[in-house]
């Protein structure tokens, strides 16, 4: 009986659960995003996260002052439910599916961060390889202001451009929309400027 049991344990060790709790392959991840897009389309909606910020403005009462925020919020309950689910999904992944290994970024990126005196996933355990806690934290004004500034840029830019990564880079491109392609090129112009010309100075600030 014993050898059979051992075999069973071994099979479980490399089983589905381990595959799901380890970091996902990019191809599987891309497939899962497509599944999310399909489910939303099937339910008659489209995949777009940043519009939820406009919904939150409406809930905060901005509609009384600015007409742009005056609309029937009931039409948007689905989106608020979706982003609420995204928070729960993050909670589930953190508590029940945590990966045993740190985020495995490339050696080039890690060496670059080291030359800047920055943390990298293995060195900043509290950040889980997700958030560099020396940049974004509650313990310094810099940490709070950077978080706030980044948020303002994202919120302003997405509404001005009518969409973010989900709406333009995925949904828009998949619908072969030229405006989305140009917007994504804009994402990269801004992203490259920040990464190469601004971030190195913010880090040492």
């Amino acid at each position, binding site marked *: 009986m014993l050898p059979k049991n051992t075999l069973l344990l071994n099979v479980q060790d490399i089983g589905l659960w381990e595959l799901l709790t380890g970091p996902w392959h990019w191809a599987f991840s891309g497939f899962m995003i497509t599944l999310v897009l399909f489910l939303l389309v099937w339910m008659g909606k489209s995949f777009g996260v940043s519009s939820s910020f406009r919904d939150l403005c409406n809930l905060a009462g901005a509609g009384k002052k600015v007409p742009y925020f005056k609309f029937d919020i009931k039409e948007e309950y689905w989106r608020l439910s979706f982003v609420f689910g995204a928070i729960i999904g993050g909670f589930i992944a953190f508590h029940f599916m945590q990966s045993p290994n740190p985020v495995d970024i490339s050696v080039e990126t890690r060496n670059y961060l080291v030359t800047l005196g920055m943390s990298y996933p293995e060195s900043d355990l509290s950040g889980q390889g997700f958030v560099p806690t020396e940049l974004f934290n509650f313990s310094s004004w810099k940490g709070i202001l950077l978080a706030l500034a980044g948020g303002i840029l994202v919120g302003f830019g997405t509404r001005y451009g009518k969409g973010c990564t989900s709406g333009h880079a995925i949904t828009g491109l998949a619908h072969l929309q030229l405006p989305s392609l*140009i917007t994504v090129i804009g994402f990269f112009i801004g992203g490259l400027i920040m990464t190469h010309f601004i971030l190195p100075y913010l880090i040492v600030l």
Partner: protein
Amino acid sequence: MKNLAYTLVGIVFGITMTKSEAISWYRIIEMFRFESFHMYGIIGVAVVLSALLLFILKRKKFKTLEGGFVEHKGMELRPKRHILAGSIFGLGWALLGACPGPIYVLIGNGFLIMGVVLIGAVFGTYLYGLWMDKLPH
């Protein structure tokens, strides 16, 4: 009850974003430094598969649960606006290492500082609404 279905899809999205590491600041800087294929792989597969899927759904006149066909409300082509708005968003994306989806997912992962980011994003959205008439569109 129907909104519960959207919450369930959101949960799948939140888990996907976390396990794919797309919510990682380090993955985003790596992408903008062109030092890994990871993020390009995720977005590339998602776009190609979604494009195929949407093409088939439109072709087969697939009916959604709400009874309509699959369609996309395209926006007017305004290159200057797209580039300008996209760049502003890109600055924030690369700074935070997070776009709107990951902001929510990271809050769920326990990073409460992302709540400050969310407040900033809502405020930034408010600023757009406030100034939209004065902006070039």
